[in-house]
């Protein structure tokens, strides 16, 4: 491809068609992901690591009978395409029969595009524009004798799939993000923004929020371990949802019985004020309208008013478990099974400001760090707070706190929670802040 063709729909589809015609397999799927990604990373109010990466990766899944092989390359001349198709085919021949493999999916109706997924100005954003955003953040920090660390990113992606059963998909999108950690001598604060449009990031407003937290949490005191009423801001709550997606909302863990959803569909498993779904098309989100097999994504209700409703499927598990394919395949080969990537939490009725006012004695958590699973079936996780932990006393944030370790069951916590009314995007999820009663902090650290 020429430089002009980078991420061009016609050029990418030509690559896919060549891969399909080159393949000797019974069935073939070709997937291409093209990305032009830039990120300006900063610390001490200065840009220190700034990068751009341009790549285009082709992956071929070959099917021989019920044997599957996958090969990938970023060499996209004719010889490279033919060679990757050959390697996938040779791998498939040496694989084993998977009796449950239903064959590649055929074309599905019902694809709904995401309006505004691509923003030309974001795709064309320059290093100077990202650096200016950093400069704007730094200016806010200096007003409070702070410095900031974080990143500003912009990227343009194209994603195309074709298979020998007639599937043809193409999607182009942009995305941008800003992370701001405001740092003082003994405190820090955090704010983040995500948008398909670079112009939608609001670096100054976010910098002011992060700086305010860093200032307000100066001279932090230690908190006794124990159970507290906590408010998790969206950046903290997001990590809980990410873990639920991984360990329990996919058909593979559901089938093998390791999911908290296994055997409990139709049962009330958390509070009836909690509704979770996967929805690629939420206007605040960043989803794409089809999965990595080219199947249109469906909005899937995972938990509805506290009741376990469903998990997500790809073509393999849909056929194996006699369920509708919800369009949640990950790229082949995939040993984790299907997974929701765009969780949306229905908002509650209370503004987060009011939620804080309603707390007599509790803790506000801005951000979490290094969450790991302790017990899968119990959805027990451990992790640390970071970048803005506050004591709430009689409805007000009164003191900064030193960071704490928590050990908590996610499902257990969602059984005693209240959701805030404001939805925001955090990474790929859309969610509000959440108040949780009896949240367990097990130990503290020195800062």
């Amino acid at each position, binding site marked *: 491809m020429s430089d002009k063709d980078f991420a061009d729909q016609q050029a990418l589809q030509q690559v896919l068609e060549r891969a399909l015609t080159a393949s000797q397999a019974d069935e073939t799927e070709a997937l291409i992901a093209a990305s032009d990604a830039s990120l300006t990373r900063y610390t001490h109010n200065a840009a220190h*690591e*700034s990068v751009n990466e341009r790549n285009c990766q082709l992956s071929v899944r070959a099917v021989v009978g019920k044997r599957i092989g996958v090969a990938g390359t970023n060499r996209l001349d004719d010889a490279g395409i033919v060679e990757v198709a050959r390697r996938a085919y040779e791998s498939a021949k040496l694989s084993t029969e998977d009796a449950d493999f239903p064959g590649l999916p055929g074309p599905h109706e019902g694809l709904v595009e995401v309006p505004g997924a691509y923003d030309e100005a974001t795709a064309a954003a320059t290093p100077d524009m990202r650096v200016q955003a950093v*400069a704007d953040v730094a200016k806010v920090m200096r007003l409070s004798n702070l410095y900031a660390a974080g990143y500003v990113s912009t990227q343009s992606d194209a994603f195309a799939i074709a298979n020998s059963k007639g599937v043809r998909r193409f999607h182009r999108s942009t995305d941008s993000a800003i992370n701001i950690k405001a740092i003082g001598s003994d405190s820090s604060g955090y704010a983040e923004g995500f948008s398909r449009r670079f112009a939608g990031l609001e670096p100054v407003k976010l910098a002011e929020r992060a700086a305010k937290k860093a200032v307000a949490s100066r001279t932090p005191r230690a908190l006794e371990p124990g159970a507290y009423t906590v408010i998790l801001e969206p950046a903290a709550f997001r990590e809980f949802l990410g873990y639920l997606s991984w360990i329990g909302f996919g058909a593979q863990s559901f089938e093998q*019985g*390791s999911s908290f959803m296994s055997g409990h569909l139709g049962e009330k498993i958390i509070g009836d004020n909690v509704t979770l779904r996967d929805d690629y098309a939420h206007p605040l989100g960043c989803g794409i309208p089809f999965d990595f097999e080219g199947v249109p994504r469906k909005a899937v209700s995972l938990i509805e008013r506290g009741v376990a409703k469903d998990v997500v499927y790809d073509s393999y598990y849909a056929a194996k478990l006699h369920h509708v394919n919800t369009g949640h395949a990950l790229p082949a080969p995939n040993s984790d099974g299907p997974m929701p990537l765009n969780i949306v939490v229905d908002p509650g009725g209370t503004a987060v400001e009011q939620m804080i006012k309603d707390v007599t004695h509790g803790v506000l958590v801005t951000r979490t760090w290094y969450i790991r699973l302790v*017990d899968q079936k119990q959805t027990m996780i451990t992790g640390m707070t*970071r970048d803005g932990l506050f004591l709430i006393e009689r409805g007000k944030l009164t003191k900064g706190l030193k960071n704490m370790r928590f050990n908590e069951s996610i499902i257990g916590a969602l059984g005693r929670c209240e959701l805030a009314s404001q939805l925001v995007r955090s990474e790929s999820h859309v969610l509000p802040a959440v108040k949780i009663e009896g949240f367990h902090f097990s130990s503290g*650290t*020195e800062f």
Partner: protein
Amino acid sequence: MPFESEAQRVLDTATRLGAEYADVRFGQTRDEHIEVRNGVVASLSDGESAGFSVRALCSGAWGFASSAKVDDAELDRVAGLAVTIARASAKIKSQPITLVPSPAHVGSYKTPFEVDPATVSLGDRVALLLAAEKEVRAAKGVTVARAWMDIWRTKKYFANSEGAKIDQELLQCGSAIHALAVGESDVQDRCFPGTGGLYQTGGYEIIRKADLLGQARRIGEEAVALLTAAQCPSDTADIVLSGDQVSLQIHESIGHALELDRVLGWEANFSGTSFATLDKLGTFRYGSEKVNVVIDMTCPLALATHGYDDEGVKATPVDLIRDGVLVGYMAGRDTANTAKVALSGCVRAEYWGRLPMIRIGNVNLEPGSVPAENIFDDIKNGIYMESNRSWSIDDKRLNFQFGCQIGYEIKDGKRGKLLKNPTYAGMTPTFWRSCDAIGDAASWVAWGTPNCGKGEPLQTARSCQGASPARFRNIQVGVGYER
């Protein structure tokens, strides 16, 4: 050398446009992965990727750009973009970047190996995994059995504007078996070897020596037995950690803490900073006098071993902790000046398209003098824990909590009953100061960690923390299960 003329074109372009220093890397990776799951090949993949990247220093600021396409126009575009990015960054730099001197090496390196994986047919590799996985599943009660192997080949050519020209070929291999047992209210799993497999530099001999087939039945049986085992008590106890668990403890509480870029705040927003600040260098008691840690990128078999790093620095062993005292950091050419520490050759990028940064290389705990069979001695009531299940540590690398796959009581110096869900927690310096016995050289293994994350955009690196089993006194155990 391949790409010599292309590299020169890039360097000439970058310097002509004003770069004070520039380097270029051409890379090619080939990653083969096979995974079998309950009798079926679940994954058989063979991926390759190639491209180049340019790092340019202009007015004391870095710029970096990369591309998969290699032709004259793209070489010029990417070199120019790296300079443009550097110039933009220079507008808001704080301290100008200065590079410590490093010889302009002209050389090559190739991972030594006994058996070229290419000489082992794909069919034979699949057959080995199927046999091992079948044996895991033969243990009654195993819900999901898996076995996998990875073979990673990397070719790279580095050149810089100071005259360095380095050609390298790296070969890394690893494999594992895994058993998952699902009970009514419990899920237990076991993996072998170690936490997630044995990953080292070398050829197919690394996979053969893992003895997947020989240990498969035991691993399956242990996973099932854990479902009905006693819960690890919540208490304070003397503990012995298996070598692979010590390896992860080193990774999280020593390796990351001693990355100089973290210490300087370069990672503050993501993976964090470090409690091991510059003022502690040379005086801080990090651990007991038995704790000696070295970064050694030349270590045979170790997963991160290479000849030179991704900024052309030759691999050289450097002490990090000697007799328990902090004496060094892992540093790059752009950070070493701040701490006046030696370069070890630990600056690496995930692949050709990513920015090189300080990464945990081979951060090895030197073996002690205690034979493995004697390491339970002197423990009246304690707990032995093996192979990691969960790991978490704060963003200055102080407060940690780890969970292991399997535990056993230690009673009067002997292994006792099986315990499930063993966890332990502590603060890094207190923990390492409580180490009073380290296994001898016979029990030392160069344990590889193939999935270390750092950086924005996120980069995955392959590291090693060589370790023996070790003993720690008065440790909080059973954390997370108290209620």
